[in-house]
């Protein structure tokens, strides 16, 4: 990373409206983690789905200099990758869903090198959730949208996963929007924190309350 911003891009959301949310704008710097919280049903998931262009909505998004509307939808989703709270698996074995895993990431998440040969049917919900994050990273996204990535994990695993993720996205200079509800987690990982209130995002000043 000699030239920090050479191959890293800002993720920008401009005037996005979906559901109750109106005219949302966000600007996430390379390597920055922006946390998003709000009551359940406030629209966190729909906002992330809209940024990934999975649902009809108004507004524009940009990654670096690329306008989303000027990029084929599947390319955009390959760059700005959404990891949903409930991951889906379609093939029999884990490895069939992966490209080349990020070196060391399997071990960091508490797996072994043989994990990729496991059968999907035998994964626990926590294993699926961790593997879903690793699967997304193996596709080398340029930005990440994480929807409650540690919701099914026990407290120790949560700490390991979130700190590895935080270090990884900073080192790789990947902009991240991270939906979370745990205040303690938000304080640990967030560079900035927004709460959904009604139709708008309100920025919270970090490290208080």
């Amino acid at each position, binding site marked *: 990373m000699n030239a920090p911003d050479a191959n890293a891009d800002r993720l920008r959301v401009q005037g996005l409206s979906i559901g109750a949310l109106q005219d949302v704008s966000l600007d996430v710097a390379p390597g920055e983690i922006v946390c998003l919280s709000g009551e359940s049903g406030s629209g966190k998931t729909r906002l992330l789905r809209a940024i*990934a*262009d*999975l*649902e*009809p909505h108004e507004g524009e998004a940009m990654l670096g200099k690329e306008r989303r509307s000027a990029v*084929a*939808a*599947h*390319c955009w*989703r*390959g*760059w700005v*990758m*959404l*990891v*949903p709270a*409930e*991951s*889906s*698996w*379609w093939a029999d074995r884990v490895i069939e*869903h992966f490209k080349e895993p990020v070196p060391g990431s399997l071990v960091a998440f508490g797996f072994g090198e043989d994990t990729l040969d496991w059968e999907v049917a035998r994964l626990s919900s926590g294993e699926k959730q961790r593997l879903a994050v690793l*699967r*997304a990273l193996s*596709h080398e996204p340029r930005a990440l949208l994480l929807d409650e990535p540690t919701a099914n994990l026990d407290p120790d695993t949560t700490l390991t996963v979130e700190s590895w993720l935080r270090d990884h996205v900073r080192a790789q200079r990947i902009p991240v929007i991270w939906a979370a509800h745990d205040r303690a987690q938000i304080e640990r990982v967030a560079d900035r924190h927004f709460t959904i209130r009604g139709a708008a995002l309100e920025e919270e000043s970090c490290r208080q309350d």
Partner: protein
Amino acid sequence: MSSGLIQLAWWELATGALLVVALAVVTHLGRLGLSRDLLVAAARMGLQLAIIGLVLEALFSVAAFQWVALMAVIMLLLAGREVMARQKRRMTGGWAFAIGTSAMFVSSFTVTVFALVIVIGPAPWYTPQYAIPLLGMLLGNTMTGVALGMDRLTDSAWRQRPVIEGRLMLGMTWSEAIGDLRRDAMRSGMIPIINGMAAAGIVSLPGMMTGQILAGSPPALAVKYQVLVFLLIAVGTGFGTVVAVLAASRRLFDERQRLRLERLS
């Protein structure tokens, strides 16, 4: 021994009807709750066939191209309506009808015209004695394939939404994301005709061939016609199913390759 046609008198049909009435009495006594349906269905069948008999008599005596074409279009539209009615989750805004009908038009009409012009060769090529029964058999079978294929596609897309969207999230195109569902749908549309061909002559004697033999045709000729018809049906059903499933799967996504299940009812 005579090879001429044995006429059926009306009273002979009536004895057949009497047997159905006897069956209805038995089902009534057995409290199967079917006798009413049985009688209504038998009466409908008789009436519908009588009408089509009159229509065909008239059509055969005129044998003009525009009337044959009109008949073909009516048959196509009825088949399109039937395809739509057989969908559990049909596409809204007339798309179920439009996709089903155009798929059947492309496959059944093309195959029928091909068979008439190239293979059978009556003069003129649209001679209704050949054109209408051929088109009817093709449409009937293509309709089944198209309806099965589209129903399977829309139903499985509805159930497997998380899988399709999970693939989209990893950067797959819409076509990759729905690829295996599409293959399953095409397969389920084509399996009936494949099974039908495999069982032909062993388990059942095909209706058309049987009818031709009853009408006095030598079995060898009847068999040749039946083989031709089976091949045409397989081609028509196959292409019709492929076209319908391809078009329907495209319609499940919008221009930004989002899965739009609200387009199903």
